């Protein structure tokens, strides 16, 4: 079964292959995603984060999830030497960390229900579990930043997370916290494979903000691989990346 909904300004797709799956499982996950949006979306005036931003909510009244997200954000800021930041123009924007976290929570909820073979995809940030419909590892294409009909790499992924940061579709939405006015123009796409989607996603954005050095940052992270595409159409990838690439034996 497969279902897609537009939430958080992006399509979210959930596919579950286990025979025991029911419509109720999908409803629970999508309703969970809506509560995440109600809490963390800066677009919603009544969300908890909007109330925090407008000084209407003192810290002692913050929800537990909000405290969790803030501490995870702080940890990520430290680990990326300040390249990850939730503070933009004096306001908190949690989108760089909430998405991956929420996908992972959803994935854990499904596992607790005994479901094994599924994926959750929120706007190209993906958590996979188990195998695909052919009983093989899930195949994830890395989209060509210059031609969205095309994939430039196909990954073969088991129980990992994949996240891509890029500026090519939304325009310039990632910036270097150290030079907020400067546009990142040398790279167009950075895909990170991590132990789970939360880990992959929280490093993909700051590594992208580092420009061409971002891929070196990913190389140094234990358990992570990356594929960076620059504005000239040249890709740079980490030392263990090839082990995740799908080998198309039918063609070669």
């Amino acid at each position, binding site marked *: 079964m497969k279902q897609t909904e*537009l939430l958080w300004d992006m399509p979210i797709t959930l596919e579950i292959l286990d025979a025991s799956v029911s419509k109720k499982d999908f409803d629970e996950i999508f309703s969970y995603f809506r509560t995440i949006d109600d809490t963390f979306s800066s677009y919603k005036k009544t969300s908890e984060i909007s109330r925090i931003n407008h000084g209407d909510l003192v810290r002692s009244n913050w929800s537990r999830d909000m405290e969790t997200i803030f501490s995870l954000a702080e940890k990520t800021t430290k680990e990326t030497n300040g390249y990850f930041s939730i503070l933009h123009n004096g306001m908190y924007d949690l989108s760089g960390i909430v998405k991956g976290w929420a996908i992972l929570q959803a994935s854990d909820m499904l596992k607790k229900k005994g479901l094994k073979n599924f*994926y959750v*995809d929120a706007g190209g940030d*993906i958590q996979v579990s188990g195998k695909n419909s052919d009983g093989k590892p899930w195949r994830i*294409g*890395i989209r060509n930043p210059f031609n969205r009909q095309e994939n430039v790499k196909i990954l073969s992924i088991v129980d990992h997370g994949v996240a891509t940061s890029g500026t*090519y579709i939304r325009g310039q939405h990632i910036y270097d916290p150290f030079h907020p006015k400067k546009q990142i123009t040398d790279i167009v796409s950075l895909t990170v494979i991590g132990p789970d989607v939360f880990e992959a996603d929280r490093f993909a954005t700051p590594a992208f903000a580092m420009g061409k050095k971002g891929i070196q940052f990913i190389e140094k992270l234990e358990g992570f691989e990356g594929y960076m595409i620059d504005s000239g159409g*040249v890709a740079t990838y980490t030392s263990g990346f090839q082990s995740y690439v799908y080998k198309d034996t039918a063609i070669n």
Partner: protein
Amino acid sequence: MKKIFLSALTIISFIAYGVYQRNQKEIAVQPLPQPVPISPTDAPSPTESVAQHISTAPVMPTNTPVPVSKGKYKDGTYTGSVADAFYGNIQVQAVIKNGKIATVNFLQYPNDRGRSIEINRQAMPLLSQEAIQAQSAQVDIVSGATDSSRAFIESLGSALSQAI
């Protein structure tokens, strides 16, 4: 006579070798221009891009301050600002008929795929590089930057703000 001939031959050989070496050096320092490995036939033409962007329109947040939803515009043709779509500029023109958007034309759309590139040779030893190439096997999921187009929204928004 034979000696003179041999000496001349030796000198010529040296000169020829020298010239050859110099050429070799020149070749070695010359940056290798590499074509971007995306076949031009596969690249979307500006008209296709219009269709793509329009088709992604429902993904736009309903609460984004785009004046599209605010009702009637004055009829006419309005040109939007040039918005940076990162790998190039986007500029659109909105044609309003009967108070509604009739057509959106792309005046500028990134189209620099044919330009030559130079591979950065200062990569870290552990990192590898390659020119991107399409891999066409079937996939279950696609990972890419999030769908929706702020540059498109920006330019269209600025075109429409003139129509109010």
